[in-house]
């Protein structure tokens, strides 16, 4: 098989398109690159969707955490504590075991049967966990940013007669995003790294449709040689990290567009850490 044929056969293998059987012997470098790259589709799927949905929830949570009423503050604080205080790994297990306990046949609500079996699949269940997890981490970042908005900005807004919702939308929210953005960029990178845990914890991969690490591990197990597949997946992740940094950097520039040059917040990458 030439490399081009390999790409045709395995390029979309992780979502079930192409050759059904994975290569069993005579592994070529091209096969490893193609399959691991095809697995990256899942990593990007989990990361991107969880990030977008998590962003919305994180904003709500940050506001709830900053609110004066304990009825909204306490639940938000607990949510953030539980998701930041426990390993993502355990959260995956817990979610999976909970979802498995749902009745197989579906739940009857007002005569309608709601199917439940799809929730135990990785594409839904794991995505949901990642969404909640990143929401908690981002909420803490945005909460910190919300509290470090310069007092003068808020007083100036009030002096201009901007109050309530107007003040939030035009002053507080943009400033919060601007201040929190460098930390949020790191969070996005960690989130993409954390997507490798999905098929490694509890959610099974059906029909060998897994993420990049699933295939890298497959090759490492089959060839007893970790020195090829793991550097390949590392290479892909460095590319992904660069891409995320680039996109978030553009957004950061947009958020900082009206700030004087010397006061702009810059994105500093921190080492990727496990959650």
């Amino acid at each position, binding site marked *: 098989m030439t490399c081009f044929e390999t790409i045709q056969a395995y390029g979309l293998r992780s979502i079930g398109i192409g050759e059904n059987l994975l290569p069993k*012997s005579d592994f070529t470098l091209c096969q490893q690159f193609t399959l691991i790259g095809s697995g990256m589709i899942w990593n990007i799927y989990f990361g991107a969707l969880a990030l977008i949905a998590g962003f919305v929830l994180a904003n709500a949570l940050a506001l709830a955490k900053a609110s004066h009423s304990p009825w909204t503050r306490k639940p938000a604080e607990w949510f953030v504590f539980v998701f930041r205080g426990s390993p993502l790994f355990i959260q995956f*297990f*817990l979610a999976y*075991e909970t979802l498995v306990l749902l009745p197989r046949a579906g739940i009857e609500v007002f005569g309608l049967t709601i199917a439940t079996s799809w929730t135990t699949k990785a594409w839904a269940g794991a995505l949901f966990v990642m969404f909640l997890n990143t929401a908690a981490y981002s909420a803490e970042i945005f909460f910190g940013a919300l509290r470090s908005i310069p007092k003068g900005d808020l007083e100036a807004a009030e002096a201009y007669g901007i109050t309530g919702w107007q003040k939030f939308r035009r002053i507080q929210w943009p400033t919060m995003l601007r201040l929190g953005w460098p930390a949020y960029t790191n969070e996005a990178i960690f989130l993409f790294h954390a997507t490798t845990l999905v098929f490694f914890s509890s959610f099974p991969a059906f029909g060998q449709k897994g993420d990049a690490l699933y295939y890298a591990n497959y090759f490492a197990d089959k060839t*007893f040689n970790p020195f090829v597949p793991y550097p390949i997946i590392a290479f892909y*992740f460095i590319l992904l990290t660069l891409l995320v940094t680039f996109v978030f950097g553009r957004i950061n520039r947009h958020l900082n567009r009206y700030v004087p040059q010397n006061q702009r917040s810059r994105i500093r990458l921190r080492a*990727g*850490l*496990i959650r």
Partner: protein
Amino acid sequence: MFAVCADPKTIEGLTWAFCYLTSGKHLDFYGSFLTVILLLVITAPCALALGFGGATAARSQVLALRIIGKTYIAMVRGIPDIIFFLFFVIALDQGIEYLKSLAVCPAGSLWPWQGLEFRVCQEAKVPLGASSAFWHNAYGFALAVVTFAIVFGAFTANVMFGAMQAVPKAQLETAEAYGMSHAQVFRRILVPQMWVFALPGLSNLWMILIKATPLLFLLGVEDIVYYARELGGSKTQSYAYPHGDWRLIYFIGLLIFYLTMTKISEKVLGRLSANLSKGQATAAGEAMRRAGA
């Protein structure tokens, strides 16, 4: 273990629960919590030492050392650490067996990486095939500890390097003006002062280390996740203590364990931070001085 529990099928209620929770497997389960704590206790100082070494090397005046230090710090950037965990364990295992094979295998043995297999002669296996299960477990655990120490050492080196840079330059220059040598400045001025700058990063790392411990399960160590899955799975009548699928309950237990660890760590590190800030030229130290005065 207890006389009451001799025949588990006949007992009920609280006695059953008591016997169930003190069965042999459960005692192993409680022991595995110690495994996790042992991992934390061993890894933290090792990572601290590696990190200190890495950070010192990265700001050394010898080019070769500086390159080694910087590479070590940069190593973990941009790559998910789970990949390091999977990679290092196999790589270390094969490396050790290869080195041992050089020493003990008969001359003329094959190069160990043969096609799809990694083969060394029987005498070079670590641990030896005939040794007990305890040694196999201990070896797996040791590999895990070394891997954790290397990966977290790199994170720590990153934090320490930043902390060393954060110590005010004027302090170091003053010390040099008093005629201290490089080593003396390092020992007497830089190291005592860097901790207050390193602490926020280090406490963050400690939290992350706690939350990384379930990865032991991935490395094949029989840790709490392993036992929670084993014990929680539904047991038929052929087992001494039959029950349904209780894995959810066990995992909630694990969740509570981790949340407690996090909470305690937060408290202790908060105290430590307050202690270290005393008399330091930082905002926190200044606030303390004002409050005291």
